[in-house]
C-alpha cells in the first residue's frame, strides 16, 4: 500500500522514525496499525510530548522565576513547600483547581469561558515550528517566522475577549491597553525580523538556523535590541506590563477570573517567555548549533540563558506609563528599525554571497551603527521620552481664599 503523502514526513527524521515504528509493527505477520492511524499516532505522540514538556518545564520555571526574582530583589522567594520550596508549583496547582470558579453577574458567558483557552493555545503553538535540535522539530513550515508573528499576536484577541466579556471597566481598560501596545510593538518587531530574513534568505526557522555562519546577534545588534524590547512588550512583562498594572487596574483583563481559568491565564503568561526565548535563540543565537555538546542541550542552554536575561530585565525595571510606552515604540524603535532594515538591505545588495571575512566587516559596520544610533537617538529623544514637567499651579482669577468665604 502506498503511504499517505505527508509533507513533514520527508524532512523530519524524528517523525519519520516514529511513523515507521508504528506502520511497520507487525503482529504474527499482520500489521494491525493502518497507515492513517500510524500517521495520526506518531503526530499525536510528538505533539503530546512537546506540549507537556513545555508545560512541565514552565511549571518548574514558575518556581525558578519566583526564586530568582526574590534573589534579584534581595528576598528569598517561595521556600515553604518541599525542599527549597520546590513543591510550590504543586501547591499552587492544587489551590487553583480546588478554588471556586466565580462568574460575575452580567458576563458574556461563552466569550468569558473561551478566552483562557484561546489565550493558552498561542504560546504553545510557537513551539510547533521551533527547531529544538538538529532535525528535531514538529513542522518545518516554509513560512515559519510568519506563523510565529501571527501566533504571538493571537493572545491579544483572547485578552480583548476576556476584557470585553468580563463587563468590568478595569478589565476593559487592561484589554484596550494591551491591544494598543501590541499594535505599536508589532511594527518594530517585524522590522527587526526582516533584517534577519534578508540575511538568511528564508522564512523557515530551520533554514534560518542553518544560514547562521555567525550568530545573527553579531550581525544584527540593533535588530536584536529592537526585537528584545518588542518581544518583552508583546509578553506584557514588567517594564511593559501596563496591561495588568496591579497598582492601577486591579489585574487588568483577568480581574474577574478565578480558579483554574485564572490559572490558565497565568500559565500562558509563564509559557510566553520560554517561547520568546526560543524565538530569540533561533533567530539571533544560532539556534541549536554549538560545538561539543549535543544540539538539544545547546538549544536548551541558550533558551535558559535568554529566559534568564528576560527575567533579569523584568526583575529590575519598573513599569512605564502608557504614553511613554507608545513614545518608545513609535519615536524610538520604529525609526531605528527602518534604519536597520535599510542598512541590512544595502549590505545584502553589495555582498550577494558574502564570505566569512565580509560577514565580519558587515558585523563591524552594524555594531558601529547600532552604538551610534542608540547613543545618538537616546540623547535626542531624552527630553521627549521623559515626562513633561509637572504643571505649575495657575492662580484662578476671582477665586477666593478660605478666609474670604463666609
Amino acid at each position, binding site marked *: 500500500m502506498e503511504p499517505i503523502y505527508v509533507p513533514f514526513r520527508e524532512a523530519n527524521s524524528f517523525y519519520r522514525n516514529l511513523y515507521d515504528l508504528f506502520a511497520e509493527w507487525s503482529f504474527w505477520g499482520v500489521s494491525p496499525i493502518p497507515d492513517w492511524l500510524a500517521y495520526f499516532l506518531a503526530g499525536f505522540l510528538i505533539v503530546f510530548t512537546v506540549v507537556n514538556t513545555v508545560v512541565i518545564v514552565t511549571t518548574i520555571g514558575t518556581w525558578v522565576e519566583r526564586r530568582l526574582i526574590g534573589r*534579584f530583589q534581595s*528576598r528569598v522567594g517561595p521556600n515553604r513547600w518541599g525542599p527549597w520550596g520546590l513543591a510550590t508549583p504543586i501547591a499552587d496547582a492544587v489551590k487553583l483547581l480546588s478554588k471556586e470558579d466565580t462568574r460575575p453577574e452580567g458576563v458574556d458567558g461563552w466569550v468569558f469561558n473561551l478566552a483562557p483557552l484561546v489565550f493558552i493555545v498561542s504560546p504553545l503553538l510557537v513551539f510547533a515550528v521551533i527547531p529544538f535540535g538538529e532535525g528535531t522539530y514538529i513542522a518545518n513550515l516554509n513560512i515559519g517566522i510568519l506563523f510565529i508573528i501571527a501566533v504571538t499576536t493571537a493572545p491579544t484577541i483572547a485578552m480583548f475577549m476576556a476584557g470585553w466579556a468580563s463587563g468590568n471597566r478595569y478589565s476593559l481598560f487592561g484589554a484596550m491597553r494591551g491591544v494598543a501596545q501590541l499594535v505599536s510593538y508589532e511594527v518594530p518587531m517585524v522590522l527587526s525580523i526582516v533584517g534577519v530574513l534578508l540575511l538568511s534568505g528564508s522564512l523557515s526557522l530551520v533554514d534560518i538556523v542553518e544560514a547562521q555562519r555567525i550568530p545573527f546577534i553579531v550581525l544584527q545588534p540593533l535588530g536584536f535590541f529592537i526585537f528584545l524590547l518588542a518581544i518583552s512588550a508583546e509578553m506584557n512583562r514588567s517594564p511593559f506590563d501596563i496591561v495588568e498594572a496591579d497598582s492601577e487596574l486591579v489585574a487588568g483583563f483577568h480581574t474577574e477570573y478565578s480558579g483554574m481559568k485564572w490559572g490558565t491565564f497565568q500559565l500562558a503568561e509563564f509559557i510566553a517567555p520560554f517561547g520568546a526565548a526560543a524565538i530569540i535563540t533561533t533567530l539571533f543565537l544560532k539556534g541549536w548549533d554549538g560545538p561539543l555538546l549535543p544540539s538539544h542541550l545547546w538549544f536548551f542552554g541558550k533558551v535558559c540563558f535568554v529566559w534568564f536575561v528576560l527575567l533579569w530585565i523584568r526583575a*529590575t*525595571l519598573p513599569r512605564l506609563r502608557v504614553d511613554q510606552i507608545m513614545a518608545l515604540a513609535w519615536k524610538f524603535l520604529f525609526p531605528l528599525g527602518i534604519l536597520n532594515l535599510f542598512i541590512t538591505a544595502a549590505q545584502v545588495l553589495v555582498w550577494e554571497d558574502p564570505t566569512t571575512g565580509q560577514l565580519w566587516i558587515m558585523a563591524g559596520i552594524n555594531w558601529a551603527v547600532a552604538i551610534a544610533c542608540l547613543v545618538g537617538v*537616546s540623547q535626542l529623544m531624552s527630553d521627549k521620552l521623559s515626562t513633561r514637567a509637572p504643571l505649575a499651579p495657575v492662580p484662578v482669577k476671582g477665586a477666593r481664599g478660605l478666609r474670604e468665604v463666609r
Partner: protein
Amino acid sequence: MYGLGIAKGLSVTFRNLFRKPSTIQYPEEAVPQAPRFRGEEFAWYEERCTGCASCAKFCPLGIIKIVTHPGGIDVQEGQSYAIDVFDIDLGRCMFCGLCVEACPYDALFMGSGFERSTYRRDDLVIPIDELRQAEKHPSTWFRPQLEAKEYRPQTGQPLSWEEVGR
C-alpha cells in the same frame, strides 16, 4: 547619557544575586527585640498587688477589670485587699503602658511577647488564672531596677516577685 540608569539598575539587581538575602525567616529566627519592648501577656505579681486598682483607673480604654474584697495579705503593706477578678482585654489594649506607670507597688509589668493571635476576640481577654500561672518575663519598660540588673526578658529566666522589686 540617557539609558545609563537602566544599565546601573541591572547591575544592582545582578549583584543582589550574590548577596545574602535580607529576609529574616520569622518563625525560625526572629529580630532581636529591645528589653523595653511593651508586649502582651502582662507580668502580674499577686504577692505584690494590693488591689488598689490604680491600673484600672489609669487605663485610657478601661479594659482592666478588677474586683476585690477586704481581707487579703500583701507582702509590702500587710493587710490589704484580696483580688477576685483581674482581667485584661488585650483585644482593645493599645500597649501604652500607663497601667504599669500607675502601679505604686511594682506589681504590674509589661510583657515581652507579640504572638498572641487568636480566632476569636474573647480569647484575647487574659483572665486572672492565666496571669497567675504564666511564666513571668517582665519587660524592663518603666522599671529601672530591672534595667539596672540588665535583665533581658526575651532570653532571661522568669523572675519571681522577690526579684522584681525596687
